[in-house]
C-alpha cells in the first residue's frame, strides 16, 4: 500500500503571536508539526502496520522544514519529501502550495493521501481539498475513524458533532480530525533510524513547474493583532451575591441578556 501524508510545519500553539513589519514575527519561535497533521502521520503508520506498504511524508516549504520531516520519520514514516519554495516569491497561497503538491503526486502511485483537517496557523484548511480536486480523487474531510479493506474505505466523519458513516473506494484523500487516534512520540531508536531514512528535496525544475504558473491568487494587504482584552471586574462576596451582581451587570452594562 502506498500511503502519503501531506504535512505542515507550524508555530507551536504555546507561542504568542507578534506582528513585525506587517508579518508574523517568527524570531525565536518554536515550530512543530501541525497538530492535526500528527493525527495523519499516526494513522498512516497504523495503516502501514496493518496492510504493509510504505509511508511517505511530503511538505512544501524551505529547508527549515527538514526538522519536522525528520520528526515524522522518527515516528515511523519511511521516506520524506520536501518541495522547496526557495525559487518562489514571498507571497505564496493555497493555490501555489496545492499546485506544487499536485505536480509531485502526478508522478507517484498512491492509494491514500492523509492530511490534517486544518493548519493551526493559517486556519483555512484549503490545501488538502484543493489537492484532491487537482488529482481528481475523492476526499473525506474531518475523519475520526478509518477502516480499509482492499480498495474499500469505511470512514467516520465528524460533521459538527454528528457522526457520518460513509463508504468509498481508494484512491482517496482524507483529512484528520481530533479523536482519530493518539499520535505516538518518536522513540529513541526511531530518532536514530530517522537520521538514515531518505529525505529528498525537489525544486520547481524537478517538478517541471514554472514560477509564473504558481503566482498566488490572493494577496495579503494587512496583518494585525486584535485589541488587547482588558481584565474586567472580579465580583466579591458569597456565591449568591456574586451571581446577583453578575446578572445585574450582564443586563445593564453588557446588555447581553
Amino acid at each position, binding site marked *: 500500500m502506498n500511503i502519503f501524508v501531506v504535512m505542515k510545519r507550524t508555530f507551536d500553539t504555546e507561542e504568542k503571536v507578534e506582528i513585525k513589519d506587517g508579518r508574523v514575527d517568527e524570531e525565536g519561535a518554536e515550530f512543530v508539526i501541525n497538530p492535526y497533521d500528527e493525527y495523519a502521520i499516526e494513522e498512516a503508520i497504523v495503516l502501514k502496520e496493518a496492510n504493509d506498504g510504505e509511508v511517505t511524508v511530503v511538505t512544501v516549504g524551505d529547508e527549515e522544514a527538514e526538522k519536522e520531516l525528520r520528526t515524522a520519520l522518527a515516528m515511523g514514516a519511511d521516506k520524506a519529501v520536501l518541495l522547496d519554495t526557495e525559487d518562489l516569491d514571498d507571497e505564496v497561497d493555497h493555490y501555489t502550495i496545492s499546485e506544487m503538491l499536485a505536480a509531485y503526486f502526478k508522478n507517484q502511485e498512491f492509494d491514500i493521501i492523509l492530511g490534517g483537517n486544518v493548519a493551526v496557523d493559517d486556519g483555512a484548511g484549503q490545501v488538502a481539498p484543493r489537492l484532491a480536486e487537482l488529482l481528481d480523487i475523492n476526499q473525506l474531510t474531518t475523519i475520526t475513524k478509518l477502516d480499509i479493506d482492499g480498495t474499500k474505505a469505511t470512514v467516520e466523519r465528524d460533521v459538527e458533532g*454528528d457522526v457520518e458513516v460513509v463508504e*468509498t473506494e481508494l484512491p482517496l484523500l482524507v483529512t484528520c480530525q481530533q479523536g482519530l487516534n493518539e499520535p505516538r512520540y518518536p522513540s529513541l531508536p526511531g530518532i536514530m533510524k530517522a537520521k538514515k531514512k531518505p529525505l529528498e528535496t525537489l525544486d520547481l525544475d524537478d517538478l517541471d513547474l514554472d514560477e509564473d504558473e504558481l503566482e498566488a491568487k490572493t494577496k495579503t*494587504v494587512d496583518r494585525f493583532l486584535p485589541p488587547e482584552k482588558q481584565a474586567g471586574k472580579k465580583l466579591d462576596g458569597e456565591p449568591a451575591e456574586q451571581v446577583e451582581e453578575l446578572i445585574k451587570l450582564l443586563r445593564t452594562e453588557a446588555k447581553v441578556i
Partner: protein
Amino acid sequence: MSKNVLVLAEAKDGELRNVSFEVVAAGKKIAGEGSVKALLVGESVASFSEQLIQQGADEVLVAEHSDLKTYTTDAYKQVLLQVIESESPDALLIPHTSSGKDLAPRLAAKLSSGLVSDVVDIEEVGEEVIFTRPIYSGKAFEKKSVSSGLVFATVRPNNIPALEVDSSRSGETKDVSVDLKDLRTVIKDIVKKTSGKVDLAEAKVIVAGGRGVKSADGFKPLEELADILGGAVGASRGACDAEYCDYSLQIGQTGKVVTPELYIAVGISGAIQHLAGMSNSKVIVAINKDEEAPIFDVADYGLVGDLFDILPILTEEFKKVKAGA
C-alpha cells in the same frame, strides 16, 4: 460599482441555518448596484426561498435532487459548477461550515481561483473587496483580497449580521435542473449526537467547562445552564483529554474557534490555546476557584469560587430572568 453575487444557503434539520442570512447580508455588502442570488441545494428546500428573499436575496435558485439530501463533495460540487457556469457570478460566498469548508477549496481548485477562507468582515476599498479573517485561531488577523477573477470567500457564522426581515420584499425563485453523476461517496449512516442542541459555531451563548468540572457528570449543571440560556456547551482541551466530554465540543486552537455574544468559562484555567479559541467572544464570564487563573485576564466578569456552589444559583437566577422576573 456593481457585482453579481452568488451565495450558498444552508439548511440543517429542516431549517435554514442562520449563516444563510449572514452570507446574503455579506453578499449585499459587495453587490453594490448588482444583485444577490441565493442558491438552495437539497432534496426538498424550495420552501425556504421566501425567507431568503425577505432577508435580502434578490433571486433564489433552487437545486433539488434526491442525491442532494445529505451533503457529499461530488454532488454539491457538480451543482455549484453547473450554477456558476450558467450564472457567471462576479463573487461567490459560501458558509464556513462543515460542508462549506469541504466544498469551497475544491471549487477553487477546479476554477483555478483564489479563495479567502473563514471571513469575519468584508469591506470595499475602491473596486477591491477586502476580507478580514483570523489567523492563529484569532491570536491575530489578516486582510486579504482575491487578486483577479472570481471574488470567492467562505464566511464564518455569527460574525456578519443578517439583515432585518422585510416582508414587503419580493423576488423570483427559479428551479435549476441538475445532472449528477459518478458520486463516489455512499452515506451509510448518520449518528445524531447533537439533535436538539445548538451548534457551537452558531451559538449566541456558550457555557464551557474545563478540568475544574472534574467528571462527565460534572457537565450536567453546565448543560442545564446552557439549556436555560438557549446556548451550547463547549469544553477545554483538558476536559476532553480527561474524557469528560467528546472532542467535538473542544474550543481552542485545536478545536473550534467561537465568537458568541456571551461565553461562560467554568473551571477553565485559560491556557493560551484555549484563549485563542474564545477570546474574541463579545462578553466573557469566568468562574474559577483559582483567583490567579489566566482566564480572568480576558474575562469581563470574574466569579471566584467553587463552580458547584455558583452554577446552581446562576441557573436559578437566569431562570427568573427568562421568566421575566
